[in-house]
C-alpha cells in the first residue's frame, strides 16, 4: 500500500495554522489578564475616590451649618434658626449621595451625630438669643462643642482611607499585570518555539530533498544513471524525484541505445569496403575508417582535422571549396565519379581514379557529410577492356555480316541457278532437294540478319525525340498490308499516342510487334489488331493486342529469349529473334515489356518506355 501522501502545501498550512492558534491563545490570555487588572483598578477607583472626596464636602456643609447658627445668634434672630433646617437637609443630601462610599454603620452614626449636634446647637442658640447666661449655659455650650467635635471626628474617621489597603490593592493590580506579562511572554515563546520547530522540521525535509534532487540531477547530467534519487517523504519533491528517476531510466535506455548505435556505426564504418571520410562544413576531416588509412597511406592521426583536399588530386583542389559550399546549401545523397572522372591522391603523391558517394549526416554539431570513396582503378581497367572487346564484337558482327553471308550467297545463288538453268537434267526429287537447299540458305540469311539487328540495337546510341507512335503504327501496318494484299485485317490505333524515344528503334519495335500480330492472326477470318495506350500509376503503358493464335502463359518466360519460339516454323515463320530485339529496344529506353495471352485467344504485348513524357496527346 502506498504511504499517506502529505503534500508540501499541507505541511506549510499546518505551520501556519499552529502558529495562528498559538497567537490566538496568546491574545486571549493577554485579554483575560488585562481584564483582571482593569477590574482591580476599577475597584480601587469605586471604593476609595468617593470616600476621599466626601470628607471636604461634609466638612463644608458642617461649617455652613455652624456659621448659620453663629449668624442667628449674632443677629438675635430666632427666625433665622429656621434656615438652619435647610442646611441640615443639604448635609443629609450630601451624605446620602456619598453614602455608597461609606460603611453603612458610619452613615447612620453620622446622621445620629448630626441630629444630636443640631439639637444641641439649636438649644444653645435659642438660649443665647434669649440672653441667657449661667453655668448651665456654659455646660450646654461645651456639650454642643463636644457634639460638633464628635461629628467632625466621625466625618474624618468614616471617610478616612486605609492606606495599607490602597497600597495592597495597587500591589495586587501590579502583580496581576506582571503575571499577565509573564504569561504573554511564555505563550509568545511557546508559540514561536512551536512555529520554529515545525518550520525547521519541514524546512529541513525540503532542504534535504532539494539537496538530494540537485545532487542527483548533477549525477544524471554527468551521464551516471545507475543511482537514482532518494527523497524521503511523500510530497511534491518526492514526486519530482520520482519523475526525475523515471526520466533518468529512460535516458539510460536512450544513452545505451545511443552508445550501441554509435558502436554499430563505428563498426559499420570500419567494416565498410569503401574508404569512409566524415567531414564538417569547414572542410576538415572529422573521422576516417581503416580502409581510408589503407587506401590513402595516411594514419588516422594525420587525417584528423586536416583539410579534406589533401585526399584529392591536385586538379580538383581549387574547385572543391565552391563545390563543398553548394553541397552544404542543399545536402542530399549524391553519387559522383562515373561522369566526373575524379581522382584521389595518396600520401606518396600517386593519384588514382575514385568514385565518391556523399551523404549528409545530421548531428548535434550541425550537418556533417560522409563520403564513401571507392578505388575504381580495377573497374576502369575492366571498362576499358570491355570497351575494347565491344569493338572486337562489332568487328565480329561486321565479319559475320560480310564473310558468313558470302558463302551463303554462293550456296543460294548457285542452287537457284541450277534450278533455273538445269531443271531439265534433274528429276523431281533432285529439284525438291535444291529447293530445300535454297530455303535453308534463305533462312540462315534471315537468322544472320536478325542477329545483326539484335546486336545493332544493343550497340546503337539512343537519340530521344518525340515520336508519333500512332502514325508510325499506321505506316507499319500499311507495309504489312502491301506485302500480303490477300489478308483482311482490322487495325485500330488510338490516335495521338506519342513517346519520347529513338525513332528508328521504335519503328523497328513496332515492325516486330505488329508483324507478329499480323502473322499470328493469319488463321483468323476476322483478324483484329489494336494499338493503344493506358495509364498505370500515371505512367503510360503502350500495348499491341491481337485476336490471333496466342500462347500458353506457362511459356511466357521464354518469349523474349533469343531463338525461343512457341510455334513451329511450319505453323508460323520467324527467326525467334524479333521479341528479343523488341525487349532490347524497350530496355534501352529504360522500359519494360510483358505479355498477356491465352492459347487460341490472342495475345497482348504491353510495354513502357522509361519516361513519363509520352502518352496520348489531345
Amino acid at each position, binding site marked *: 500500500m502506498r504511504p499517506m501522501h502529505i503534500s508540501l502545501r499541507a505541511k506549510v498550512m499546518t505551520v501556519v495554522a499552529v502558529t495562528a492558534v498559538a497567537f490566538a491563545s496568546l491574545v486571549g490570555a493577554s485579554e483575560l489578564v488585562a481584564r483582571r487588572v482593569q477590574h482591580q483598578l476599577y475597584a480601587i477607583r469605586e471604593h476609595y475616590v468617593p470616600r476621599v472626596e466626601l470628607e471636604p464636602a461634609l466638612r463644608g456643609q458642617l461649617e455652613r451649618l455652624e456659621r448659620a447658627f453663629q449668624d442667628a445668634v449674632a443677629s438675635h434672630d430666632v427666625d433665622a434658626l429656621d434656615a438652619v433646617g435647610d442646611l441640615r437637609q443639604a448635609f443629609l443630601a450630601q451624605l446620602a449621595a456619598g453614602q455608597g462610599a461609606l460603611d453603612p454603620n458610619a452613615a447612620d452614626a453620622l446622621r445620629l451625630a448630626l441630629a444630636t449636634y443640631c439639637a444641641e446647637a439649636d438649644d444653645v442658640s435659642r438660649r443665647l438669643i434669649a440672653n441667657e447666661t449661667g453655668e448651665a449655659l456654659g455646660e450646654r455650650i461645651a456639650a454642643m462643642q463636644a457634639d460638633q467635635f464628635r461629628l467632625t471626628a466621625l466625618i474624618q474617621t468614616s471617610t478616612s482611607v486605609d492606606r495599607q489597603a490602597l497600597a495592597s490593592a495597587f500591589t495586587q493590580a501590579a502583580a496581576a499585570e506582571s503575571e499577565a506579562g509573564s504569561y504573554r511572554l511564555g505563550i509568545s515563546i511557546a508559540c514561536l518555539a512551536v512555529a520554529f520547530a515545525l518550520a525547521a522540521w519541514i524546512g529541513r525535509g525540503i532542504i534535504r530533498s532539494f539537496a538530494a534532487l540537485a545532487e542527483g540531477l548533477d549525477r544524471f547530467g554527468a551521464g551516471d544513471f545507475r543511482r537514482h534519487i532518494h527523497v524521503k517523504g511523500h510530497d511534491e519533491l518526492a514526486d519530482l524525484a520520482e519523475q526525475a528517476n523515471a526520466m533518468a531510466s529512460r535516458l539510460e535506455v536512450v544513452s545505451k541505445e545511443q552508445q550501441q548505435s554509435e558502436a554499430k556505426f563505428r563498426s559499420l564504418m570500419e567494416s565498410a569496403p569503401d574508404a569512409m571520410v566524415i567531414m564538417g562544413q569547414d572542410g576538415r576531416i572529422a573521422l576516417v575508417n581503416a580502409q581510408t588509412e589503407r587506401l590513402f597511406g595516411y594514419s588516422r592521426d594525420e587525417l584528423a582535422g586536416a583539410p579534406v583536399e589533401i585526399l584529392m588530386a591536385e586538379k580538383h583542389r581549387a574547385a572543391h571549396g565552391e563545390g563543398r559550399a553548394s553541397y552544404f546549401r542543399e545536402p542530399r545523397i549524391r553519387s559522383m565519379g562515373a561522369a566526373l572522372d575524379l581522382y584521389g591522391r595518396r600520401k606518396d603523391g600517386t593519384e588514382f581514379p575514385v568514385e565518391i558517394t556523399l551523404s549528409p549526416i545530421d548531428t548535434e554539431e550541425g550537418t556533417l557529410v560522409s563520403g564513401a570513396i571507392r578505388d575504381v582503378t580495377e573497374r576502369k581497367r575492366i571498362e576499358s577492356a570491355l570497351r575494347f572487346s565491344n569493338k572486337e564484337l562489332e568487328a565480329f558482327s*561486321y565479319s559475320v*555480316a*560480310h564473310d558468313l*553471308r*558470302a*558463302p551463303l*550467297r*554462293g550456296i*543460294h*545463288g*548457285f542452287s537457284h*541457278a541450277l534450278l*533455273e538453268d538445269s531443271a531439265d537434267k534433274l528429276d523431281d526429287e533432285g529439284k525438291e532437294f535444291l529447293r530445300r537447299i535454297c530455303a535453308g540458305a534463305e533462312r540462315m540469311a534471315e537468322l*544472320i*540478319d536478325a542477329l*545483326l539487328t539484335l546486336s*545493332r540495337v544493343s550497340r546503337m546510341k539512343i537519340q530521344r525525340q518525340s515520336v508519333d507512335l500512332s502514325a508510325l503504327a499506321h505506316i507499319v501496318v500499311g507495309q504489312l498490308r502491301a506485302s500480303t494484299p490477300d489478308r483482311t485485317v482490322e487495325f485500330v490505333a488510338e490516335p495521338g499516342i506519342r513517346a519520347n524515344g529513338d525513332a528508328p528503334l521504335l519503328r523497328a519495335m513496332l515492325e516486330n510487334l505488329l508483324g507478329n500480330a499480323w502473322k499470328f492472326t493469319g488463321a483468323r477470318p476476322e483478324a483484329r489488331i489494336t494499338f493503344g495506350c493506358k495509364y498505370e500509376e500515371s505512367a503510360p503503358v503502350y500495348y499491341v493486342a491481337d485476336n490471333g493464335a496466342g500462347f500458353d502463359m506457362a511459356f511466357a518466360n521464354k518469349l523474349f529469349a533469343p531463338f525461343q519460339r512457341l510455334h513451329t516454323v511450319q505453323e508460323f515463320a520467324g527467326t525467334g529473334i524479333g521479341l528479343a530485339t523488341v525487349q532490347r529496344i524497350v530496355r534501352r529506353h529504360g522500359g519494360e515489356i510483358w505479355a498477356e495471352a491465352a492459347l487460341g485467344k490472342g495475345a497482348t504485348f504491353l510495354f513502357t518506355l522509361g519516361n513519363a513524357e509520352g502518352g496520348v496527346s489531345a
Partner: protein
Amino acid sequence: MNALAGGGAILLVEDNPDDELLTLRSLKKHNIMNEIVIARDGAEALDYLFGTGAYAGRPPERLPQVVLLDLNLPRIGGLDVLRRIRETPRTKFLPVVVLTSSNEDEDVIESYSLGANSYVRKPVNFEAFGVAVKTLGLFWLLMNETSPERTTP
C-alpha cells in the same frame, strides 16, 4: 547517245568470284549485253577509271555507264573508291550503285553521305538491280541498248 555513254560498259567491282559469277549470270539472263568490266579490288577499279596501272593508256574519258561497287574489298576499300570518284571532277557525276551484303546501317549511311546514287543488296538479282537502275534514270539507256526488241514494262 547519252553523254554518259562512253561505250556503255558496266564496271563491276567485286572480289568474290561467286558473287561475280552470279551477278554476271543475272545480267545476262536479263539480256543486258553491255560490256562488263570486272575489277577485283579497289585499286584495280581506280586504275580502270583513271587509266593508270594495268589500264595505263586506256583513254580515261571513256567512262563506264555505271559502277557496281562492293564495299568489302581488299587493298583499297569500296568507300575509299567512292570517295576518290566523287573527289575527281571528271568522275564526279558517274552513277555508282553500292553493293552491300547486309543492311548494315553504317555502310548504307556512309555510302550515301559519300555520294552513292543507290545501293543494292547482294546477291544482285536483276529485279533489285533493275529498281536501282530505274531510280538512276539509266533504265532506258540500258534497255534500249541491250534489248531494243523488248517492250517496256
